[in-house]
């Protein structure tokens, strides 16, 4: 069974008529890193939001199976507990809520939904401190409010930290490279690479090939006008980098 199987997914913004996803089909296997590339406005971010269950979008047709179960009727927190994680393009600030409070709330909320007891605090502290160190997150960052006053790089590293703590089955990275300098990009990529495993899949959404120098994809899909128009190996990304999207998009149209 595939980790993620999207069949004929059609979706639009809840308060607009225009379809953004138009019968999208996509399969991601366990252990696979699938890159999704595409021009602006092709529906990349919409795909990530629809999979994570954002309310602003309405699914008008199709299904998305995670481990064989259609998740489109589940609430965002239920999807999260089933192992779906979205690394945000623009992580959200929550003033006054300490990082540790937030991380612990997230970890325990998911544990409870999966019938586990809360993680004992000492164990949790040890886990966070260990992962934070690997990602170059300073103790000071852990004492601050969630994402408040963080630089672009810090925010993305913070997303990586959350991913490392929550150990998802399927991680969707939405334009993780935006706003990152090379050093920050490397740290985030190292974090993802360290989590690659035969049981876990990644969907790496990106506009530029650059990120894929650091996170080597197994497959590359090209998204245009709300559907996958071409799939190939890592070399497809390089081809896009050299020739631009117009060539492929033109052919498909």
């Amino acid at each position: 069974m595939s980790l993620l199987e999207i069949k004929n997914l059609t979706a639009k913004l809840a308060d607009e008529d225009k379809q953004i996803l138009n019968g999208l089909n996509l399969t991601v296997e366990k252990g696979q890193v699938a890159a999704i590339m595409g021009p602006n406005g092709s529906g990349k971010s919409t795909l990530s939001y629809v999979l994570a269950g954002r309310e602003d979008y309405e699914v008008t047709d199709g299904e998305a199976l995670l481990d064989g179960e259609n998740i489109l009727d589940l609430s965002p927190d239920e999807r999260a507990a089933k192992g779906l994680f979205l690394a945000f393009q623009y992580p959200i600030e929550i003033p006054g809520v300490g990082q540790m409070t937030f991380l612990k709330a997230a970890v325990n909320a998911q544990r409870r939904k999966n019938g586990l007891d809360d993680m004992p605090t000492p164990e949790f502290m040890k886990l966070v401190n260990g992962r934070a160190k690997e990602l170059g997150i300073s103790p000071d960052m852990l004492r601050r409010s969630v994402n408040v006053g963080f630089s672009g790089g810090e925010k993305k590293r913070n997303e990586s930290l959350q991913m490392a703590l929550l150990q998802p089955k399927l991680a969707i990275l939405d334009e993780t490279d935006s706003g990152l300098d090379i050093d920050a990009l490397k740290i985030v990529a190292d974090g993802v690479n360290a989590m690659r495993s035969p049981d876990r899949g990644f969907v790496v959404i990106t506009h530029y090939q650059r990120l894929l120098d650091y996170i080597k994809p197994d497959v590359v899909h090209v998204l245009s006008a709300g559907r996958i128009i071409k799939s190939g190996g890592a070399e497809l990304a390089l081809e896009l980098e050299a020739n631009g999207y117009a060539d492929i998009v033109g052919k498909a149209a």
Partner: protein
Amino acid sequence: MPAVQETVEQVRAIDVDQYKYGFSTEIEMELAPKGLSEDIVRYISARKNEPAWMLEWRLDAYRRWLTMREPDWARVDYPQIDFQDMYYYAAPKSNAAPKSLDEIDPAILETYKKLGIPLREQEILAGVAPENRIAVDAVFDSVSVVTTFKEELKKSGVIFSSISEALHEHPELVKQYIGSVVPTTDNYYATLNAAVFSDGSFVYIPPGVRCPMELSTYFRINEQKTGQFERTLIIADKGSYVSYLEGCTAPMRDENQLHAAVVELIAHDDAEIKYSTVQNWYPGDSQGKGGIYNFVTKRGDCRGARSKISWTQVETGSAITWKYPSCILRGDDSQGEFYSIAVSNGAQQVDSGTKMIHLGKNTRSRIISKGISAGRSQNTYRGLVSAHRRATNAKNFTNCDSLLIGNACGAHTVPYIESKTASAVFEHEATTSKVSEDQMFYCMQRGLTQEEAIALIVNGFVKDVLQQLPMEFMVEAQKLIAISLEGSVG
């Protein structure tokens, strides 16, 4: 985090109605005849066996009240109150003057137990470390039923009793201070209170004494059609310190009940009073039926040099709140603080804030107000900061933040700033924000339910103020806020 989880569990445990203090106690009561007149004022005074000067003081107030008009400047809306259609005095019959807890009606003890306020000292002592003990004055409708730890407090010279008792045992202190901060002529409700107040707490901290425990008063309205008019007087003599907390609840009834209290604080040279309120009167149902009208006058007088008065309030209850705990910064170098969390949901209306009146030199004040509106509620911050001509170098910092949940509620900020001295520095910051869908989605994507996400975001919003509460009440207040917001989304 545990607090957030507990909050959510508590919210779930509450089935249909969110208000868990809504039960009423069946107990035989002695009521004054219905309505208000000079005779009723005399009746109350006689019931309390008051000295003649006190009765005169009440009658003066009553006669003045007859000439006054109800204020209508607040942003609240309610039908005309019929002051003849309520009782002004209600006392448990069995409880004329209990000498000890054994003489108190068990139904009352049970009521307080149910509210989580143990009144038996041995029960309190059993589970609590000495430094965490809290002395309680329990006011049930119109009378104080018991005050705990009085003997122990006496050892350090602290007087903590009901105001009725203080009138007999320390009449000179009461006479000297009562009405000296909130005069009988002050405003419509304060004047009414002066005429008919039935009980309340009295605290005197002698010079140089740091009160050895937290003091608190727990107000309970039980009887139907009854107004509660309590009066609290706290005096911190030179160089003393006291921290005081009040809590309030009432049964769920579909009538509106009036609570018009007066609180006066006096801080002499170098004294400090910290006054915290957790107000959880019955707010009415989601349609706006029933609930308490909480029309309260609270004022502190920093009478001495370098004195300090700090108000902290967590307001979640009442159908209507009309309340402006204030500080008169009379002494040079005195300080006033006001920290407020006002939560409104359903059809609640809140018009609350503070007044910082700078009279002395180098006086400082600080206002942090967090308003949270949900449902169809209206939540107004109204505040005055003023500096007298002589108040050179007065400083104020004000920060008012409003948080909206949903799109049918309102938040309003009405600051008044008056400065008559060029050297005053007044700063005012205000923000209004909404619990954003982005924040909710972010939290939920990480696994939090909608309820957990709201609780987390709101607790973050009010953190600065919660930290001002005595430790024991911080968690309690956190839970209360989340419960008040149940059903505010989705």
